[in-house]
């Protein structure tokens, strides 16, 4: 199918973009890489009044060092993220997870920020942003606003962005030394959504886990931080057995969906199996 009619705006600056967004009203959509939005347009599940295309905003393509964090611009593609030296050095979890996103064609157009703004709980990157305590940078004609990842994902495909707000970038704190990371994605075909995914980072001190971050993909309407698991491994031995036991907490408080690709019951089971694996892989045990 093909999209319905909409106004098309291609601003030349971020200021113009947020102005256009404000002017366009509630039913405007922002187009970055378009890998989620275009299918919705084509299937006429989305009827935006206006499309604000960020294509000309080259300044937003940047991935830059911001001291103790890395800032990913709104137009930085997955492909860029995967190959970026800053990301690879300081945010290897993001690089790993991004490598699993869809297929090369999608990764060359799709953007990290676009994935977050789309807020699809089956997307891989919201969980990564959550695990890494990313901060999302929103701009509007009303000013700037920083939204912690933990508050950004409000509900199924619904973010905390106001209709007039543009996600201009994401600030992701560097993990620092001593962290091992892993993204465990469980899907049936390479380009398919995760049935369940586990984003995991573990910092070891000798045989002990000093700290851990665990977040789950597609275990509810929003990505979920598995704090029960984090608590259960922190300060404990870094062993497969311990991880297995801790992973039993993975599904606590989650509301996994039942759909064509898996039942809630199965997802609940997977969450603990995959979390144990992710912890072991991240901790290298």
């Amino acid at each position, binding site marked *: 199918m093909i999209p319905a009619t909409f106004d098309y705006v291609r601003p030349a600056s971020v200021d113009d973009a947020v102005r256009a967004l404000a002017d366009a009203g509630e039913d405007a959509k922002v187009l970055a890489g378009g890998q989620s939005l275009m299918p919705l347009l084509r299937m*006429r599940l989305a009827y935006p009044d206006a499309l604000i295309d960020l294509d000309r905003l080259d300044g937003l393509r940047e991935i830059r060092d911001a001291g103790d964090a890395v800032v990913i611009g709104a137009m930085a593609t997955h492909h860029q993220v995967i190959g970026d030296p800053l990301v690879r050095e300081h945010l290897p979890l993001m690089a790993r997870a991004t490598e699993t996103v869809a297929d090369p064609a999608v990764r060359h157009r799709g953007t990290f920020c676009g994935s977050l703004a789309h807020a699809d709980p089956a997307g891989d990157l919201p969980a990564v942003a959550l695990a890494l305590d990313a901060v999302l940078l929103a701009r509007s004609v009303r000013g700037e606003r920083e939204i912690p990842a933990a508050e950004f994902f409000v509900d199924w495909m619904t973010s905390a962005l106001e209709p007039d707000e543009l996600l201009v970038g994401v600030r992701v704190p560097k993990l620092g030394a001593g962290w091992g990371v892993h993204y465990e994605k*469980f899907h*049936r*075909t390479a380009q398919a959504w995760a049935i369940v995914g586990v984003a995991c980072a573990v910092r070891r001190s000798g045989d002990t886990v000093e700290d851990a971050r665990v977040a789950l993909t597609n275990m509810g309407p929003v990505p979920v931080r598995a704090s029960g698991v984090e608590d259960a491994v922190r300060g404990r031995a870094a062993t497969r057995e311990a991880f297995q036991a801790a992973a039993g907490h993975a599904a606590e408080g989650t509301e996994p969906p*039942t759909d*064509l690709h898996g*039942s809630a019951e199965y997802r609940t089971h997977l969450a603990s199996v995959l979390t144990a694996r992710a912890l072991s892989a991240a901790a290298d045990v």
Partner: protein
Amino acid sequence: MTATTEGPAREMGSPRKRSEDARLITGRTRWTDNMAPAGTLHVAFLRSPHAHARITGVDAGAARNRPGVVAVFSGADFADEQGALPCAWVVTEDMKHPDHPPMAVDEVRYVGEPVACVVARDRYAAFDALEEIDVDYEPLPAVVDMEAAVADGADLVHEGLGTNTSYTWVFENGDLDAAMRDAPVVLERRYVQQRLIPTAMEPRSVLCVPEGEEFTLYSATQIPHILRLMLATVTGIGEHRIRVVAPDVGGGFGSKLQVYGEEVIALLLARRLGRPVKWTESRSEGNMTVHHGRDQIQRLTLAAERDGRIRGLKVELLADMGAYLMLVTPGIPLLGAFMFNGIYKMDAYSFTCSGVFTTKTPTDAYRGAGRPEATFAIERLMDELAAELGMDPIEVRRRNWIAHEEFPYDTIAGLTYDSGNYEAATDKALELFGYDKLRAEQADRRERRDPVQLGIGVSTFTEMCGLAPSRVLGSLSYGAGGWEHASVRVLPSGKVEVVTGSSAHGQGHETAWAQITADRLGVPFEDVKVLHGDTAVSHKGMDTYGSRSLAVGGVALYSACDKVVDKARKIAAHLLEASEQDLEFEGGRFSVRGVRQEGRTLQEVALAAFAAHDLPDGIEPSLDSDATFDPDNFSFPHGTHLCAAEVDTETGMVKIRKYVAVDDVGKVVNPLIVEGQVHGGLAQGIAQALYEEAVYDAEGNLTTTTMADYLIPSAADLPSFTTDRTETPATSNPMGVKGVGEAGTIASTPAVVNAIVDALRPFGVDDVPMPCTPERVWRALRSEPDPGTLEPGTAEPGAGGGLGSAGGAR
């Protein structure tokens, strides 16, 4: 065959890269949707959102008034001229065969059935206008579950028929009761062949250009010739006034072996509006409306001796027709009737199939068409029998298969297998696979209780292809013959044009046919041009499906080439002042035996024929020849496929560790094309085992309309295949070829499922329904019934990535 001396086979057998690939892969070619004659109007179809409903009103007023809209028609607007879509295979005399209007008039019977269409100046205007058409429906009960559909008192798909059963077709041979009676081993199984969506790379597309009272219809079809005849029949327009062109076509797998309502409507719109009209479907539209494949429930009973020898087999099928009978819908499951016995000998066989109407997209041919379903059943049963007897699955097969010295062999299903060597293919496969070593690893993993278990699956398949001997088709009440036509034109310059009735849609005929011609005529490969897919150019043909192109169409070409040489010989003899008998033809040159330096090339002869200055008396100035080939028998490719699968018992994930395919497709024209066909076939067969399923919900909505939900594996999901061949020539044609289009698909599905079940057998598992999703494997391990096999209404949605299709939506 002729007295032609065989030259060194430079082309046939050579792994030439396909000459058509560059333009096909880059898309810089004549896809139907690439064509847009001046003034082309664009068509969009409004489709039923209901699985079953009465149409009580269609208001197209608002749509007609939209800018850019030229016309809006509902089914009622065409009721008097659209006729009914044809079914060419009336399998029984009392077959129930409901009318199938191209656009629904009174009632819709599946989601996606066309109800109205908009013709507009561009596609955007057409789609926008679709939203303005207001249709009132009175919903009727959906009928999604085949077993429920055949029960007493079931809701009816076609009220007027009084039943949902279209036909029941029976084949019996031998004394089945005797075979079953007191049999030491009796296995009873129920397997479900889930519904599949063919998913050709190129969506359907139709462009119809009117020229006065005549029409050229371009369509992404496999069957330009059949389509032309059928369009004439359906619309009453003279066949001679319709030209059908299948330009480059991007795959079909059977889905374009069809006469679609959209094709008929395009023709009628072009006639009514006097303008070219074009329609191209979207992927989600196609998933709902391209005919689907498979969808059978199989109840199987196998009786055997303790030593593994099969006594008899009983097959009871329910085959989902969907809402209507399309071109060959009812016959598809019956193609399996001759294949359930596989490569095995047995004393008795009984096959019963009922075609069942449901309110779902109609089914029809899909790669393998009836034979994959049958092969799956028998190959799964052979593994089950081996397990029951504690015997190696290869050994059970050895004890039952037809030994190579027994060919030709008359099977219990009434076919004569002309040739084969199952021992050779199996031995080769076992060696390539490292069978013993993998068995040892399997034992070790079992011993260690490794969370990842290893399973080995076997499939020693055969199939009947090269469709088909016309006589046999006649005896099966098929509406046409199975011959194929070819003609060869030698141009004055010595270049050669080959016209074939086969209609390539990705198979590489342009390369393979040129190779055959180059060899037979001794001309350079580059000098041969292959023409096809246009009824104005190729006036005669039966098109491409059923692995028939080489085994029938290629053989016709082979014969036509020989006729060219025969004609040329007469002229060459005249020019060389020698007698025909003294001429030899080698490397494209006639020479007098023993006097090699004196000779005439075929090109020289062609020029002489063109000039016609000096031809022998009574000889026409032409070397052009044509030939039609109608085989005496099917061809029977066979092979042994072995699959090693790792099954993660914690998650249910299956990973194919190793896959070996040794196929015997007889003589080979282009081994590279053969390998490509095998690879693609394997991917499709494995996809049935692991990934694909068209899933309907209880209301009859297809929930797998996009490729996010209908999973197609890519190279990233598949192992590196080990392929090899044995070569036992077919005896039913002079080239010894059998056909390879479907072999990989037919063989691989049971190999994969057998491997999965083999891995899980220590856990008490003896089946996992297809597709074997991780969740289904996981549930099988927990001895939980799969939701797809439960009674309707008891399963929760989604448990396992598929709600069953043949099993009915739950």
